[in-house]
Protein backbone atom coordinates (compact mmCIF):
# COMPACT_ATOMS: atom_id res chain seq x y z
CA UNK A 1 0.00 0.00 0.00
CA UNK A 2 1.49 3.39 -0.95
CA UNK A 3 2.18 5.79 1.88
CA UNK A 4 -0.57 8.35 2.11
CA UNK A 5 -0.87 11.52 4.05
CA UNK A 6 -2.36 11.11 7.51
CA UNK A 7 -4.62 14.11 7.88
CA UNK A 8 -6.03 12.89 11.14
CA UNK A 9 -2.71 12.50 12.91
CA UNK A 10 -1.59 16.04 12.26
CA UNK A 11 -4.85 17.73 12.99
CA UNK A 12 -5.39 15.56 16.04
CA UNK A 13 -2.08 16.53 17.54
CA UNK A 14 -2.91 20.17 16.96
CA UNK A 15 -6.35 19.82 18.46
CA UNK A 16 -4.88 17.82 21.34
CA UNK A 17 -2.56 20.56 22.52
CA UNK A 18 -5.32 23.04 21.82
CA UNK A 19 -7.92 21.14 23.78
CA UNK A 20 -5.45 20.53 26.59
CA UNK A 21 -4.94 24.26 26.92
CA UNK A 22 -8.68 24.77 26.73
CA UNK A 23 -9.38 22.21 29.44
CA UNK A 24 -6.78 23.68 31.73
CA UNK A 25 -8.08 27.19 31.19
CA UNK A 26 -11.60 25.89 31.66
CA UNK A 27 -10.81 24.24 34.97
CA UNK A 28 -9.09 27.29 36.30
CA UNK A 29 -11.93 29.50 35.09
CA UNK A 30 -14.58 27.28 36.66
CA UNK A 31 -12.74 27.23 39.91
CA UNK A 32 -12.61 30.96 40.14
CA UNK A 33 -16.16 31.23 38.87
CA UNK A 34 -17.51 28.66 41.27
CA UNK A 35 -15.60 29.73 44.30
CA UNK A 36 -15.72 33.44 43.67
CA UNK A 37 -12.02 34.23 43.21
CA UNK A 38 -10.02 35.59 40.30
CA UNK A 39 -6.62 34.58 41.65
CA UNK A 40 -6.43 31.24 39.85
CA UNK A 41 -7.68 32.21 36.45
CA UNK A 42 -5.30 35.04 35.70
CA UNK A 43 -2.03 33.02 35.58
CA UNK A 44 -3.69 30.11 33.77
CA UNK A 45 -5.02 32.38 31.03
CA UNK A 46 -1.68 34.10 30.69
CA UNK A 47 0.11 30.78 30.25
CA UNK A 48 -2.60 29.53 27.94
CA UNK A 49 -1.91 32.37 25.53
CA UNK A 50 1.82 31.75 25.38
CA UNK A 51 1.66 27.98 24.88
CA UNK A 52 0.41 28.10 21.33
CA UNK A 53 3.48 26.69 19.62
CA UNK A 54 4.97 24.88 22.59
CA UNK A 55 4.80 21.08 22.78
CA UNK A 56 1.77 19.77 24.63
CA UNK A 57 3.72 18.25 27.50
CA UNK A 58 4.86 21.59 28.89
CA UNK A 59 1.99 22.14 31.30
CA UNK A 60 2.42 25.35 33.22
CA UNK A 61 1.37 23.50 36.37
CA UNK A 62 2.66 20.06 37.46
CA UNK A 63 0.64 17.14 36.14
CA UNK A 64 -0.61 16.08 39.58
CA UNK A 65 -1.95 19.57 40.21
CA UNK A 66 -3.59 19.67 36.80
CA UNK A 67 -5.37 16.35 37.53
CA UNK A 68 -6.23 17.35 41.10
CA UNK A 69 -7.79 20.59 39.87
CA UNK A 70 -9.96 18.66 37.41
CA UNK A 71 -11.09 16.27 40.11
CA UNK A 72 -11.57 19.12 42.54
CA UNK A 73 -13.85 21.00 40.15
CA UNK A 74 -16.12 17.97 39.75
CA UNK A 75 -16.19 17.39 43.50
CA UNK A 76 -16.91 21.06 44.19
CA UNK A 77 -19.78 20.99 41.67
CA UNK A 78 -21.26 18.06 43.55
CA UNK A 79 -21.12 19.97 46.84
CA UNK A 80 -22.69 23.00 45.19
CA UNK A 81 -25.48 20.89 43.65
CA UNK A 82 -26.16 19.40 47.08
CA UNK A 83 -27.16 22.87 48.28
CA UNK A 84 -30.19 22.66 45.99
CA UNK A 85 -32.59 20.67 48.14
CA UNK A 86 -35.88 22.16 46.97
CA UNK A 87 -37.80 19.29 45.41
CA UNK A 88 -40.24 21.62 43.67
CA UNK A 89 -37.35 23.44 41.96
CA UNK A 90 -35.65 20.19 40.86
CA UNK A 91 -38.96 19.01 39.38
CA UNK A 92 -39.58 22.37 37.73
CA UNK A 93 -36.23 22.17 35.91
CA UNK A 94 -37.06 18.67 34.74
CA UNK A 95 -40.62 19.38 33.63
CA UNK A 96 -40.02 22.65 31.78
CA UNK A 97 -41.18 22.20 28.16
CA UNK A 98 -42.11 24.40 25.21
CA UNK A 99 -43.86 23.10 22.12
CA UNK A 100 -42.19 24.21 18.90
CA UNK A 101 -44.17 24.37 15.70
CA UNK A 102 -42.00 23.17 12.85
CA UNK A 103 -43.39 24.25 9.49
CA UNK A 104 -43.53 21.53 6.85
CA UNK A 105 -42.08 18.85 9.13
CA UNK A 106 -43.01 16.07 6.69
CA UNK A 107 -41.21 17.80 3.84
CA UNK A 108 -38.13 18.27 6.05
CA UNK A 109 -38.10 14.57 6.87
CA UNK A 110 -38.29 13.69 3.17
CA UNK A 111 -35.42 16.08 2.41
CA UNK A 112 -33.37 14.46 5.23
CA UNK A 113 -34.17 11.00 3.83
CA UNK A 114 -32.89 12.07 0.41
CA UNK A 115 -29.78 13.79 1.81
CA UNK A 116 -28.91 10.62 3.75
CA UNK A 117 -29.20 8.32 0.75
CA UNK A 118 -27.29 10.70 -1.57
CA UNK A 119 -24.62 11.01 1.13
CA UNK A 120 -24.24 7.24 1.39
CA UNK A 121 -23.95 6.89 -2.39
CA UNK A 122 -21.36 9.70 -2.46
CA UNK A 123 -19.27 8.15 0.33
CA UNK A 124 -19.18 4.77 -1.40
CA UNK A 125 -18.88 6.10 -4.98
CA UNK A 126 -16.23 8.78 -4.36
CA UNK A 127 -14.53 6.54 -1.81
CA UNK A 128 -14.07 3.79 -4.38
CA UNK A 129 -13.42 5.86 -7.51
CA UNK A 130 -12.48 9.38 -6.36
CA UNK A 131 -9.09 10.94 -5.45
CA UNK A 132 -6.79 8.68 -3.45
CA UNK A 133 -5.51 11.38 -1.09
CA UNK A 134 -7.66 11.39 2.04
CA UNK A 135 -7.76 15.19 2.29
CA UNK A 136 -9.12 15.41 -1.25
CA UNK A 137 -11.59 12.54 -0.99
CA UNK A 138 -15.19 13.51 -0.31
CA UNK A 139 -15.98 10.08 1.17
CA UNK A 140 -13.35 10.38 3.90
CA UNK A 141 -14.24 14.01 4.62
CA UNK A 142 -17.99 13.39 4.77
CA UNK A 143 -17.63 10.41 7.14
CA UNK A 144 -15.05 11.86 9.57
CA UNK A 145 -15.55 15.62 9.38
CA UNK A 146 -19.18 15.93 8.27
CA UNK A 147 -20.71 12.94 10.02
CA UNK A 148 -18.68 11.68 12.97
CA UNK A 149 -17.52 15.16 14.09
CA UNK A 150 -20.18 17.56 12.79
CA UNK A 151 -23.40 15.58 12.67
CA UNK A 152 -22.69 13.77 15.95
CA UNK A 153 -22.37 17.19 17.63
CA UNK A 154 -25.80 18.24 16.40
CA UNK A 155 -27.35 15.13 17.97
CA UNK A 156 -26.51 16.27 21.53
CA UNK A 157 -26.44 20.03 20.98
CA UNK A 158 -29.67 20.30 18.97
CA UNK A 159 -31.58 17.03 18.69
CA UNK A 160 -31.34 13.52 17.30
CA UNK A 161 -32.22 13.72 13.60
CA UNK A 162 -30.54 10.40 12.76
CA UNK A 163 -33.83 8.45 12.35
CA UNK A 164 -34.73 10.84 9.49
CA UNK A 165 -31.24 11.07 7.98
CA UNK A 166 -30.22 7.40 8.41
CA UNK A 167 -29.92 6.20 4.78
CA UNK A 168 -30.14 2.54 5.76
CA UNK A 169 -33.51 3.11 7.44
CA UNK A 170 -34.78 4.86 4.30
CA UNK A 171 -33.55 2.02 2.09
CA UNK A 172 -34.83 -0.68 4.47
CA UNK A 173 -38.35 0.74 4.26
CA UNK A 174 -38.42 -0.30 0.61
CA UNK A 175 -37.29 -3.85 1.42
CA UNK A 176 -39.49 -6.75 2.52
CA UNK A 177 -39.06 -7.95 6.10
CA UNK A 178 -39.38 -11.38 7.66
CA UNK A 179 -40.19 -9.82 11.05
CA UNK A 180 -38.42 -12.53 13.00
CA UNK A 181 -38.78 -12.08 16.78
CA UNK A 182 -35.63 -10.56 18.30
CA UNK A 183 -34.27 -12.76 21.14
CA UNK A 184 -34.94 -10.67 24.25
CA UNK A 185 -32.11 -12.20 26.25
CA UNK A 186 -29.60 -10.58 23.88
CA UNK A 187 -30.78 -7.12 24.98
CA UNK A 188 -28.39 -4.40 23.86
CA UNK A 189 -25.31 -6.66 24.05
CA UNK A 190 -24.97 -6.92 20.24
CA UNK A 191 -24.79 -3.12 20.06
CA UNK A 192 -22.19 -3.04 22.88
CA UNK A 193 -20.07 -5.50 20.89
CA UNK A 194 -20.75 -3.53 17.70
CA UNK A 195 -19.64 -0.23 19.25
CA UNK A 196 -16.44 -1.70 20.71
CA UNK A 197 -15.79 -3.45 17.40
CA UNK A 198 -16.22 -0.30 15.31
CA UNK A 199 -13.90 1.69 17.58
CA UNK A 200 -11.30 -1.09 17.51
CA UNK A 201 -11.48 -1.08 13.71
CA UNK A 202 -11.13 2.71 13.63
CA UNK A 203 -8.02 2.59 15.83
CA UNK A 204 -6.11 -0.27 14.21
CA UNK A 205 -6.90 0.33 10.53
CA UNK A 206 -6.17 3.38 8.34
CA UNK A 207 -9.90 4.10 7.99
CA UNK A 208 -9.33 7.87 7.98
CA UNK A 209 -6.51 7.72 5.42
CA UNK A 210 -7.61 5.14 2.90
CA UNK A 211 -10.78 6.09 0.98
CA UNK A 212 -11.00 2.65 -0.68
CA UNK A 213 -10.89 0.82 2.65
CA UNK A 214 -13.43 3.22 4.16
CA UNK A 215 -15.83 2.64 1.28
CA UNK A 216 -15.48 -1.13 1.67
CA UNK A 217 -16.18 -0.91 5.41
CA UNK A 218 -19.25 1.23 4.71
CA UNK A 219 -20.41 -1.37 2.17
CA UNK A 220 -19.90 -4.15 4.72
CA UNK A 221 -21.87 -2.18 7.32
CA UNK A 222 -24.59 -1.63 4.70
CA UNK A 223 -24.81 -5.37 3.99
CA UNK A 224 -25.04 -6.30 7.70
CA UNK A 225 -27.56 -3.55 8.46
CA UNK A 226 -29.88 -4.30 5.54
CA UNK A 227 -29.71 -8.05 6.27
CA UNK A 228 -30.63 -7.31 9.88
CA UNK A 229 -33.53 -5.09 8.79
CA UNK A 230 -34.86 -7.80 6.51
CA UNK A 231 -34.60 -10.40 9.29
CA UNK A 232 -36.00 -8.42 12.25
CA UNK A 233 -37.65 -5.33 10.70
CA UNK A 234 -36.09 -1.84 10.64
CA UNK A 235 -37.66 -0.69 13.93
CA UNK A 236 -36.27 -3.63 15.89
CA UNK A 237 -32.89 -3.42 14.18
CA UNK A 238 -32.32 0.31 14.62
CA UNK A 239 -34.03 0.36 18.01
CA UNK A 240 -32.14 -2.50 19.59
CA UNK A 241 -29.20 -3.87 17.58
CA UNK A 242 -27.57 -1.09 15.51
CA UNK A 243 -24.83 0.56 17.63
CA UNK A 244 -24.76 3.77 15.56
CA UNK A 245 -28.48 4.49 16.03
CA UNK A 246 -28.12 3.79 19.73
CA UNK A 247 -25.21 6.22 20.08
CA UNK A 248 -27.24 9.00 18.46
CA UNK A 249 -30.38 8.15 20.43
CA UNK A 250 -28.46 8.41 23.72
CA UNK A 251 -26.67 11.57 22.59
CA UNK A 252 -30.09 12.93 21.61
CA UNK A 253 -31.27 12.56 25.22
CA UNK A 254 -28.78 15.30 26.15
CA UNK A 255 -30.21 17.65 23.52
CA UNK A 256 -32.82 20.38 24.05
CA UNK A 257 -35.05 19.36 21.10
CA UNK A 258 -36.95 16.08 21.22
CA UNK A 259 -40.05 14.45 19.81
CA UNK A 260 -42.93 13.80 22.13
CA UNK A 261 -46.18 12.43 20.80
CA UNK A 262 -45.52 13.55 17.25
CA UNK A 263 -44.60 17.12 18.26
CA UNK A 264 -41.20 18.73 18.60
CA UNK A 265 -40.60 20.10 22.08
CA UNK A 266 -37.89 22.17 23.71
CA UNK A 267 -36.49 21.21 27.15
CA UNK A 268 -33.59 22.30 29.32
CA UNK A 269 -30.49 20.49 27.90
CA UNK A 270 -29.64 17.36 29.87
CA UNK A 271 -33.01 16.97 31.57
CA UNK A 272 -33.92 14.19 29.12
CA UNK A 273 -31.27 12.10 30.91
CA UNK A 274 -33.49 12.02 33.99
CA UNK A 275 -36.20 10.01 32.22
CA UNK A 276 -36.74 6.53 33.64
CA UNK A 277 -37.24 4.83 30.28
CA UNK A 278 -34.00 5.93 28.57
CA UNK A 279 -31.85 3.05 29.87
CA UNK A 280 -33.98 0.02 30.65
CA UNK A 281 -31.66 -2.87 31.49
CA UNK A 282 -28.13 -3.97 32.34
CA UNK A 283 -26.97 -4.30 28.73
CA UNK A 284 -27.98 -0.69 28.04
CA UNK A 285 -26.07 0.45 31.13
CA UNK A 286 -23.06 -1.36 29.65
CA UNK A 287 -23.59 0.48 26.36
CA UNK A 288 -23.58 3.89 28.08
CA UNK A 289 -20.34 3.02 29.91
CA UNK A 290 -18.87 1.72 26.63
CA UNK A 291 -19.70 5.02 24.91
CA UNK A 292 -17.88 6.94 27.62
CA UNK A 293 -14.92 4.53 27.51
CA UNK A 294 -14.39 4.49 23.73
CA UNK A 295 -13.85 8.27 23.60
CA UNK A 296 -11.18 7.83 26.28
CA UNK A 297 -9.67 4.77 24.54
CA UNK A 298 -9.41 6.62 21.25
CA UNK A 299 -7.15 9.16 22.96
CA UNK A 300 -5.31 6.65 25.17
CA UNK A 301 -3.78 4.63 22.33
CA UNK A 302 -2.16 7.80 20.93
CA UNK A 303 -0.18 8.66 24.09
CA UNK A 304 3.48 7.97 24.96
CA UNK A 305 2.61 5.86 28.06
CA UNK A 306 0.59 3.52 25.87
CA UNK A 307 3.43 3.33 23.36
CA UNK A 308 5.86 2.39 26.14
CA UNK A 309 3.56 -0.24 27.64
CA UNK A 310 2.70 -1.69 24.22
CA UNK A 311 6.37 -1.83 23.19
CA UNK A 312 7.32 -3.52 26.47
CA UNK A 313 4.51 -6.08 26.18
CA UNK A 314 5.37 -6.95 22.58
CA UNK A 315 9.02 -7.19 23.63
CA UNK A 316 7.98 -9.77 26.22
CA UNK A 317 6.36 -11.81 23.47
CA UNK A 318 2.73 -10.63 23.60
CA UNK A 319 1.13 -10.85 20.15
CA UNK A 320 0.78 -7.28 18.82
CA UNK A 321 -2.52 -8.10 17.15
CA UNK A 322 -4.18 -8.90 20.49
CA UNK A 323 -2.88 -5.78 22.22
CA UNK A 324 -5.56 -3.35 21.09
CA UNK A 325 -8.66 -5.52 21.60
CA UNK A 326 -7.27 -6.61 24.99
CA UNK A 327 -6.74 -3.01 26.12
CA UNK A 328 -10.19 -2.10 24.80
CA UNK A 329 -11.85 -4.85 26.84
CA UNK A 330 -9.77 -4.36 30.00
CA UNK A 331 -10.43 -0.61 30.03
CA UNK A 332 -14.12 -1.16 29.43
CA UNK A 333 -14.14 -3.66 32.31
CA UNK A 334 -12.45 -1.12 34.60
CA UNK A 335 -14.92 1.66 33.70
CA UNK A 336 -17.90 -0.68 34.05
CA UNK A 337 -16.60 -2.17 37.29
CA UNK A 338 -16.03 1.29 38.77
CA UNK A 339 -19.59 2.29 37.90
CA UNK A 340 -21.03 -0.89 39.46
CA UNK A 341 -19.01 -0.36 42.63
CA UNK A 342 -20.31 3.20 42.82
CA UNK A 343 -23.90 2.02 42.48
CA UNK A 344 -23.48 -0.66 45.16
CA UNK A 345 -21.81 1.74 47.53
CA UNK A 346 -24.47 4.37 46.85
CA UNK A 347 -27.17 1.80 47.56
CA UNK A 348 -25.65 1.00 50.96
CA UNK A 349 -25.14 4.63 51.88
CA UNK A 350 -28.68 5.57 50.93
CA UNK A 351 -30.10 2.67 52.97
CA UNK A 352 -32.52 1.79 50.21
CA UNK A 353 -34.23 -1.44 49.20
CA UNK A 354 -34.33 -0.41 45.55
CA UNK A 355 -32.42 -3.13 43.65
CA UNK A 356 -28.91 -2.23 42.44
CA UNK A 357 -29.79 -2.81 38.74
CA UNK A 358 -32.59 -0.24 39.05
CA UNK A 359 -30.17 2.30 40.50
CA UNK A 360 -27.59 1.49 37.80
CA UNK A 361 -29.99 2.14 34.95
CA UNK A 362 -31.31 5.35 36.51
CA UNK A 363 -27.86 6.83 37.17
CA UNK A 364 -26.10 5.63 34.00
CA UNK A 365 -27.59 8.34 31.71
CA UNK A 366 -25.75 11.08 33.65
CA UNK A 367 -22.53 9.67 32.12
CA UNK A 368 -23.84 10.53 28.65
CA UNK A 369 -23.43 14.25 29.39
CA UNK A 370 -19.74 13.64 30.18
CA UNK A 371 -19.34 11.60 26.99
CA UNK A 372 -20.90 14.41 24.96
CA UNK A 373 -18.61 16.97 26.61
CA UNK A 374 -15.52 14.99 25.70
CA UNK A 375 -16.78 14.43 22.16
CA UNK A 376 -16.87 18.23 21.71
CA UNK A 377 -13.38 18.56 23.22
CA UNK A 378 -12.07 15.92 20.82
CA UNK A 379 -13.71 17.06 17.61
CA UNK A 380 -14.71 20.75 17.65
CA UNK A 381 -11.29 22.05 16.62
CA UNK A 382 -10.94 19.23 14.08
CA UNK A 383 -14.37 20.03 12.60
CA UNK A 384 -13.69 23.74 12.19
CA UNK A 385 -10.15 23.29 10.86
CA UNK A 386 -11.27 20.89 8.15
CA UNK A 387 -14.68 22.38 7.25
CA UNK A 388 -13.33 24.43 4.30
CA UNK A 389 -11.67 21.27 2.98
CA UNK A 390 -15.00 19.48 3.21
CA UNK A 391 -16.81 22.35 1.47
CA UNK A 392 -14.16 22.35 -1.27
CA UNK A 393 -14.64 18.64 -1.83
CA UNK A 394 -18.43 19.10 -1.87
CA UNK A 395 -18.13 21.78 -4.54
CA UNK A 396 -16.29 19.43 -6.86
CA UNK A 397 -16.18 15.81 -5.60
CA UNK A 398 -14.06 14.33 -8.38
CA UNK A 399 -11.52 17.15 -8.78
CA UNK A 400 -11.54 19.13 -5.50
CA UNK A 401 -9.46 22.29 -5.01
CA UNK A 402 -6.36 21.93 -2.83
CA UNK A 403 -7.22 21.62 0.86
CA UNK A 404 -7.60 24.77 2.95
CA UNK A 405 -7.58 24.60 6.74
CA UNK A 406 -8.82 27.18 9.22
CA UNK A 407 -6.31 28.43 11.78
CA UNK A 408 -8.21 28.82 15.02
CA UNK A 409 -7.91 32.14 16.86
CA UNK A 410 -6.75 32.08 20.48
CA UNK A 411 -10.11 33.19 21.92
CA UNK A 412 -11.67 30.09 20.45
CA UNK A 413 -10.39 28.05 23.40
CA UNK A 414 -13.18 29.58 25.42
CA UNK A 415 -15.84 27.79 23.39
CA UNK A 416 -14.50 24.31 24.12
CA UNK A 417 -13.97 25.49 27.68
CA UNK A 418 -17.71 26.01 28.00
CA UNK A 419 -18.61 22.59 26.64
CA UNK A 420 -16.14 20.53 28.69
CA UNK A 421 -17.39 22.27 31.81
CA UNK A 422 -20.99 21.87 30.82
CA UNK A 423 -20.67 18.10 30.35
CA UNK A 424 -19.52 17.64 33.94
CA UNK A 425 -21.92 20.13 35.45
CA UNK A 426 -24.87 18.57 33.62
CA UNK A 427 -23.81 15.06 34.74
CA UNK A 428 -23.62 16.15 38.38
CA UNK A 429 -26.99 17.87 38.11
CA UNK A 430 -28.67 14.89 36.39
CA UNK A 431 -27.44 12.50 39.09
CA UNK A 432 -28.65 14.96 41.73
CA UNK A 433 -32.12 15.30 40.19
CA UNK A 434 -32.41 11.53 39.66
CA UNK A 435 -31.54 10.80 43.28
CA UNK A 436 -34.20 13.26 44.41
CA UNK A 437 -36.73 11.42 42.31
CA UNK A 438 -35.72 8.01 43.68
CA UNK A 439 -35.32 8.70 47.39
CA UNK A 440 -37.79 10.29 49.82
CA UNK A 441 -35.07 11.69 52.10
CA UNK A 442 -33.06 14.65 50.81
CA UNK A 443 -29.94 13.83 52.83
CA UNK A 444 -30.47 10.22 51.76
CA UNK A 445 -30.44 11.40 48.12
CA UNK A 446 -27.21 13.34 48.61
CA UNK A 447 -25.53 10.37 50.35
CA UNK A 448 -26.47 8.07 47.47
CA UNK A 449 -24.19 10.08 45.17
CA UNK A 450 -20.94 10.12 47.16
CA UNK A 451 -19.48 7.08 45.42
CA UNK A 452 -20.81 8.09 42.00
CA UNK A 453 -19.11 11.47 42.38
CA UNK A 454 -15.84 9.74 43.25
CA UNK A 455 -16.15 7.63 40.09
CA UNK A 456 -16.91 10.75 38.01
CA UNK A 457 -13.76 12.31 39.45
CA UNK A 458 -11.86 9.17 38.39
CA UNK A 459 -13.29 9.36 34.83
CA UNK A 460 -12.39 13.05 34.67
CA UNK A 461 -8.83 12.56 35.84
CA UNK A 462 -8.32 9.66 33.41
CA UNK A 463 -9.51 11.81 30.52
CA UNK A 464 -7.43 14.79 31.61
CA UNK A 465 -4.34 12.60 31.93
CA UNK A 466 -4.81 11.46 28.34
CA UNK A 467 -5.62 14.91 27.03
CA UNK A 468 -2.47 16.35 28.62
CA UNK A 469 -0.08 13.83 26.98
CA UNK A 470 1.48 14.68 23.60
CA UNK A 471 0.16 12.87 20.55
CA UNK A 472 2.12 9.91 19.20
CA UNK A 473 0.88 7.65 16.42
CA UNK A 474 -0.44 4.37 17.89
CA UNK A 475 2.31 1.70 17.59
CA UNK A 476 1.89 -1.65 15.79
CA UNK A 477 -0.96 -0.52 13.52
CA UNK A 478 -0.87 0.00 9.79
Amino acid at each position, binding site marked *: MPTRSRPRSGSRSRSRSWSERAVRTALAALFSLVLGGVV*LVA*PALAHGGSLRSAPARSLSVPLWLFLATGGGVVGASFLLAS*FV*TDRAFVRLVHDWRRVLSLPAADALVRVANAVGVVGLLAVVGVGLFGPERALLNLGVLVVWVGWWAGFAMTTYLVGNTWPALNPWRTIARALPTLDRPYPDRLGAWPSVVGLLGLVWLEVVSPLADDPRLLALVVLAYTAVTLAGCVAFGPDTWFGRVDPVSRVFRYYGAVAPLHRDGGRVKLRIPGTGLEDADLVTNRSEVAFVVALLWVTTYDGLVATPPWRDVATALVGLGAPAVLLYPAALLVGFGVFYGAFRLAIRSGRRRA*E*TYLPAPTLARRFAPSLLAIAAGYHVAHYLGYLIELSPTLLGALSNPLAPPSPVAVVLPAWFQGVALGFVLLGHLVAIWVAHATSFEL*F*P*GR*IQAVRSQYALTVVMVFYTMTSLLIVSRPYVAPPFVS
Partner: protein
Amino acid sequence: MSTGSTPVAGTDTAPDARGPAEGFDCSYCGRRFAREAYRDLHLGQEHEERLDDTEREAYEAAHDAEAEEIRLFRLKALAVLVLVYFGFLVVYAFTL
Protein backbone atom coordinates in the same frame (compact mmCIF):
# COMPACT_ATOMS: atom_id res chain seq x y z
CA MET B 1 -44.46 -6.69 58.28
CA SER B 2 -47.43 -5.44 56.39
CA THR B 3 -47.72 -5.94 52.69
CA GLY B 4 -50.22 -3.46 51.32
CA SER B 5 -51.08 -3.65 47.66
CA THR B 6 -48.91 -5.98 45.59
CA PRO B 7 -46.16 -4.02 43.83
CA VAL B 8 -45.45 -4.68 40.19
CA ALA B 9 -42.16 -6.51 39.70
CA GLY B 10 -39.56 -4.64 37.71
CA THR B 11 -40.80 -1.15 38.54
CA ASP B 12 -38.90 1.36 40.61
CA THR B 13 -41.29 0.92 43.51
CA ALA B 14 -40.95 -2.85 43.78
CA PRO B 15 -39.17 -3.78 47.01
CA ASP B 16 -36.09 -5.89 46.65
CA ALA B 17 -37.15 -9.51 46.91
CA ARG B 18 -33.96 -10.29 48.82
CA GLY B 19 -34.48 -7.46 51.27
CA PRO B 20 -34.40 -8.18 54.97
CA ALA B 21 -37.60 -8.98 56.82
CA GLU B 22 -37.53 -5.81 58.88
CA GLY B 23 -38.36 -2.47 57.31
CA PHE B 24 -41.21 -0.03 56.96
CA ASP B 25 -43.69 -0.64 54.18
CA CYS B 26 -45.81 1.97 52.44
CA SER B 27 -49.40 0.86 52.93
CA TYR B 28 -50.43 2.36 49.56
CA CYS B 29 -47.79 1.10 47.11
CA GLY B 30 -45.89 -1.52 49.12
CA ARG B 31 -42.43 0.04 48.68
CA ARG B 32 -40.21 -0.78 51.66
CA PHE B 33 -37.94 1.65 53.49
CA ALA B 34 -35.08 1.13 55.91
CA ARG B 35 -36.18 3.93 58.22
CA GLU B 36 -39.57 5.02 59.43
CA ALA B 37 -38.71 8.62 58.53
CA TYR B 38 -38.10 7.66 54.88
CA ARG B 39 -41.49 5.93 54.77
CA ASP B 40 -43.22 8.95 56.30
CA LEU B 41 -41.54 11.32 53.83
CA HIS B 42 -42.50 9.01 50.97
CA LEU B 43 -46.14 9.07 52.10
CA GLY B 44 -46.20 12.87 52.04
CA GLN B 45 -44.53 13.08 48.62
CA GLU B 46 -46.25 10.32 46.70
CA HIS B 47 -49.64 9.80 48.35
CA GLU B 48 -50.34 13.24 49.76
CA GLU B 49 -54.02 13.34 48.84
CA ARG B 50 -54.79 10.00 50.52
CA LEU B 51 -53.13 10.59 53.91
CA ASP B 52 -55.05 10.46 57.20
CA ASP B 53 -54.26 12.81 60.07
CA THR B 54 -51.71 10.54 61.78
CA GLU B 55 -49.79 9.99 58.57
CA ARG B 56 -49.84 13.70 57.78
CA GLU B 57 -48.46 14.53 61.21
CA ALA B 58 -45.76 11.88 60.83
CA TYR B 59 -44.83 13.36 57.46
CA GLU B 60 -44.56 16.87 58.85
CA ALA B 61 -42.48 15.69 61.80
CA ALA B 62 -40.12 13.80 59.49
CA HIS B 63 -39.89 16.83 57.20
CA ASP B 64 -38.97 19.13 60.08
CA ALA B 65 -36.40 16.72 61.47
CA GLU B 66 -34.87 16.49 58.00
CA ALA B 67 -34.67 20.28 57.67
CA GLU B 68 -32.52 20.31 60.81
CA GLU B 69 -30.26 17.64 59.34
CA ILE B 70 -29.93 19.58 56.08
CA ARG B 71 -28.84 22.72 57.92
CA LEU B 72 -26.04 20.75 59.52
CA PHE B 73 -25.08 19.13 56.22
CA ARG B 74 -24.88 22.53 54.51
CA LEU B 75 -22.52 23.83 57.15
CA LYS B 76 -20.26 20.83 56.63
CA ALA B 77 -20.42 21.14 52.84
CA LEU B 78 -19.57 24.83 53.08
CA ALA B 79 -16.61 24.02 55.32
CA VAL B 80 -15.33 21.47 52.79
CA LEU B 81 -15.76 23.96 49.93
CA VAL B 82 -13.80 26.59 51.82
CA LEU B 83 -11.08 24.05 52.63
CA VAL B 84 -10.86 22.94 49.00
CA TYR B 85 -10.74 26.52 47.79
CA PHE B 86 -8.02 27.67 50.13
CA GLY B 87 -6.19 24.37 49.76
CA PHE B 88 -5.91 24.90 46.03
CA LEU B 89 -5.14 28.57 46.50
CA VAL B 90 -2.16 27.75 48.71
CA VAL B 91 -0.98 24.91 46.47
CA TYR B 92 -1.20 27.09 43.36
CA ALA B 93 0.58 29.95 45.14
CA PHE B 94 3.51 27.65 45.97
CA THR B 95 3.62 25.90 42.60
CA LEU B 96 3.27 28.72 40.09
